[in-house]
């Protein structure tokens, strides 16, 4: 059942409902021209909010504070090829509420992915961004500081917190060469940062990772070879331990593959779960097909 088709001048790259209320359901998009637009899909002729946020394509977008997920103000984060990550509040026109950009003189990297997290009360909030050179940066929006950074050697295609609205628990970052990393975000060691476990899913790029909205320890990755992998994270017996100097450091758990399917010969670039129906998911692939799948027996995992 095809409901409606809306065409816009600039090709769209990414979109989110994350910062809109359950009642409004405004759709925020980032396009190839670097514009951030928010659309009322009931009246899509002109955007309700529009800003030329970046100089180049907006690769990634995420929202928080809407849909009943995340405490605090509704905010949208965009990551662009121009190397900047900007946080927007739909109530403030034209300027971002936070701007994370490389210092002048530094080479700017292509930001491929952004994600919100840690929004468990009105003050706390972090943004995680992944770059083409394998950098992962964690910005703390409360303290307006760079909280942590690491490099996973290959371009970071997708990052996601298992939950945006809890005290940072886990972060999954997927990479260009088919690996993904799961970071335990509960315990940050002063020098070593967060503990992580990595797993090679397939021989091709992992384009996206999405956590099951009904169980944060189950997530699906979508791969370049047109396959989907369903994973489960298992916590270690002790999530943190003391190092020789007495500082707390995290202990990573393990990841196990629950199921995998191959749907297409082309990469599956995009993936999401239904918030209402457990196991229902949708994915879009380069073969111009949108597929709807149902994952059964998730209760028994």
């Amino acid at each position: 059942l095809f409901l409606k088709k809306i065409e816009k001048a600039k090709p769209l790259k990414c979109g989110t409902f994350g910062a809109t209320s359950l009642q409004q359901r405004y759709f925020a998009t980032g396009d190839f021209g670097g514009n951030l637009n928010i659309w009322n899909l009931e009246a899509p002729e002109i955007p309700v909010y529009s800003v030329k946020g970046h100089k180049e394509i907006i690769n990634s977008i995420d929202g928080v504070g809407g849909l009943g997920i995340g405490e605090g103000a509704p905010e949208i984060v965009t990551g662009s090829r121009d190397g900047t990550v900007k946080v927007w509040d739909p109530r403030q026109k034209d300027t971002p509420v936070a701007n994370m950009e490389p210092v002048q003189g530094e080479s700017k990297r292509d930001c491929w992915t952004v994600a919100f997290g840690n929004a468990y009360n009105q003050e706390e909030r972090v943004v995680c961004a992944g770059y083409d050179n394998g950098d992962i940066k964690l910005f703390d929006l409360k303290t307006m500081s760079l909280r942590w950074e690491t490099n996973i050697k290959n371009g970071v295609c997708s990052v996601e917190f298992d939950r945006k609205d809890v005290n940072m628990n886990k972060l999954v970052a997927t990479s260009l060469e088919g690996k993904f990393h799961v970071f335990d975000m509960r315990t940050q060691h002063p020098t070593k940062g967060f503990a992580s476990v990595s797993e090679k899913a397939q021989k091709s790029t992992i384009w996206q990772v999405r956590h099951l909205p009904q169980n944060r320890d189950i997530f699906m990755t979508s791969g370049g070879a047109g396959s989907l992998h369903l994973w489960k994270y298992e916590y270690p017996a002790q999530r943190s331990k003391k190092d020789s100097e007495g500082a707390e450091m995290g202990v990573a758990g393990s990841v196990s593959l629950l199921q995998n399917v191959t749907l297409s010969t082309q990469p599956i670039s995009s993936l999401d779960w239904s918030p209402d129906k457990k196991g229902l998911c949708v994915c879009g692939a380069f073969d111009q097909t949108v597929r709807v799948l149902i994952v059964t027996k998730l209760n028994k995992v």
Partner: protein
Amino acid sequence: GTTKTYQIPIGHLDYKFIEKCTDVKHLEKILRVLRSGEEGCYPELTLFCEKRIEHLDPRSRALRKDKPAATASDFTAEEWKTINGELMSWVTEMNEDEKKPQFLRTDTLHERQDNLPPIRCSSSCLPANQNKKLQNKQRNKKNIPRDYSEWDKFDVEKECSKIDEGCEENNSKARFFSRPSLPIIEKKIDTTGMTMKEKVFIATREKEKGNEAFAVGDYVEAVSYYTRSISVIPTAAAYNNKAQAEIKLQDWDSALQDCEKVLDMEPGNIKALMRRATVHNQLQNYQAAIEDLNKVLCVEPENAIAKKNLLEIEKKLKGLMPVSETQGKGKRILIQDIEDSEGDEERGENTEERGGSKAEDRETQKQKESTESGLKKGTSQKKTQKHLSDHEGAGSAGGGSSASLPPTAAKLKCEGNELFKSGQFGEAVLKYSEAIEYVMGLGEQSPDDLSVLYSNRAACYLKEGNCSDCIQDCNRALELQPFSLKPLLRRAMANESMERYRQAYIDYKTVLQIDSSIQAANDSANRITKTLIDQDGPSWREKLPPIPVVPVAAQLHRWDGGNFTSDSKPRCEKAEEKFKTLKNEGNEFVKKGKYEEAVNKYSECMKLNTEECTIYTNRALCYLKLYKYEEAKQDCDHVLQIEDSNIKAFYRRALAYKGLQNYQASVDDFNRVLLIDPNVLEAKKELEEVTQLLNLHSSAVAGSQQKQRKKITIQEVTESDEQEERQFVTSEDVVTDHVTSKEAVQNSVPLKTSEKLRISEPSNAYDFGQIINAVNTSKDKAACADLLTITDPKKLPVLLSNKLEGEIFLIFVQSLEYYVVGKDPGLVYQHLFYLSKAERFKVVLALLSKNEKEQVQQLFDLLSETQNNQYSLEDLESLKKVYEL
């Protein structure tokens, strides 16, 4: 030669090599070569290699295969139907929601916007590189002078919040690396302006977050999320989960509160009951814990955890008794009130006299409850188990004499049996295991004995609720000794509790082939038949595995086998079972207050077993209730001959003596009760009373004329019928006594009522209710009149609470009419007036019959005849209207 890729020697592509190779990496390479087909296509070998890798490393990546998405054909029709059905129902649900007017874009939205936190301070720039961070920060902090256009946009509030944030920034920086240990999670969610749908969504989400946190062990966090969920929509599930998290945090009080909230919402919630039992157990309210667990077992008689916990708690309670019998609630109930405590009583007594049969008692008690709730399934299940534990006794008796067992093993087995009898199943398992190991070490010379050991261990597992181990042991026992009865029965029961009805059915049927007289097996087989028919429809038999045919030899073998000492055993067992059933029926009747019938049942019991003291004490109780004091005394005497320190027998004989007016003997018996257990409050009270009676009795002889008169009337009353009683109370001076001296009231009331109806001024609705019930059952209008005399009419509605019933109403009216109206019509008016204010008054009034209405009319007539300054005729008329006369 070697392969093209990886350069593996061709010789490695061989069954023998692969079978022996333990290097997973190498095997993976071989597999890749085989799969690629560059050295030729060997599907069998490839499969073999895969299996080998799977054996060595089930999680090897090489085993991952690309699979296409499952389609309808990959599922059984049934599975596909459920999947499809669920999806369809979800779609319809969603469609319905869509149609509802959801887009309430009225002012609610603005309201919400107002609640939102302020916009983050704008244009804060964040360096993306750590090394330049400090420098950059300093730049940020500098106050750059604004230009005019910026001043135009200046927003005071925003700037204020910026400053606030700045402060926070500093604070948080200070603790940045030491990470706040506990995150601050708001306990409440602001839901103003949210639609119901949103609230449901958020409540569910918060609950799920709680569940996730719980799963990881972050109980504090879990509690906060559950609290948040509850703040949006209070649900039983959220409270229940919260209680569980609080139990983990050992926050017993909160857990108790939450359990109670759940039970308010869903009175039969099993989980909440289980959890409350745990909390009660921790708070050392063992009696309450036992009650909760019994409730659970009432609904789910198979609940293994509940059974286990119950056993443990009872053990604790038992262990505690000698130490803290003081205010021991349980102890007090023990004698206080028969209706409620029959179960406890039995438990106590049986453990004393039967030593090991504690588990059995528990089951008896359970059985009673399940019978009550009409759960036939539970009942017969219990019977089966009981039957089995009887077997066990027999088995252990036989086991001791089993000569073929080496002495060490025999000793271990005996110890195991002892432990089993005392209910320490875990330890018993250890003993049996040791014995098994020992026998195994000697080589398999004695399959029979080994089989018995396995079978006994299986019994322990069954008791512990460890059904799978039980089945395993039964299997072993049956391998060693096919068609032996006990392991078959145990396996059947274990299977049944695991809801593997088919297997259970087969086993029961096999048992019946061996011995068709085992009632328990018969019952169970029938019961399972029903379940299977429900489950599989009329063709259920087709789905059954074949029932093994028992060779005739095995049928004979059963009695030759060393486990059973004699042929007569089953008959004994049957008698015992019948005895128990009768006893339970008796107990049932007691509960219902049908003492006559209960006496009959107990008497039948005695024909079967004259040794069991419980029956006698129970029958004595019934006799007491029936005022047959002499018989009660005899029963108690009998018990005391067998057991010279049976506290209950003493207590009841004391009551019987009291009834027989043998106060001295009564006092003696009460003293003995208190000697055995100085904390039986009832005995203390009774003793005081009887001592008073005794004093009265003796002093009366030498006492004044008035007192003597009183005494005589009293004696009359004890054996009197109602008429005499009425005469007695109408005699002026006694009533005056009531009113004038309170002490006199308290003394004379119990005398008059011959039973232990002591009427003191009720302090609360509960007391009042108790007295009313007592009065009502004995139809003792005089006592009721006394009660009403000393009760402040104004308190009547409060005291009656919602307990006003037709019977109570009538006895009020009657006693007012017969006893009080002549004496104090003002008081009668007051009572009638306040009675009409009581809850349920209208209902009761509406249900009165014609006759009964006439009685009320009579009372009013009497009132209007006897004038009083406390009410006028008009008052009376208006009250009459209230009474619909």
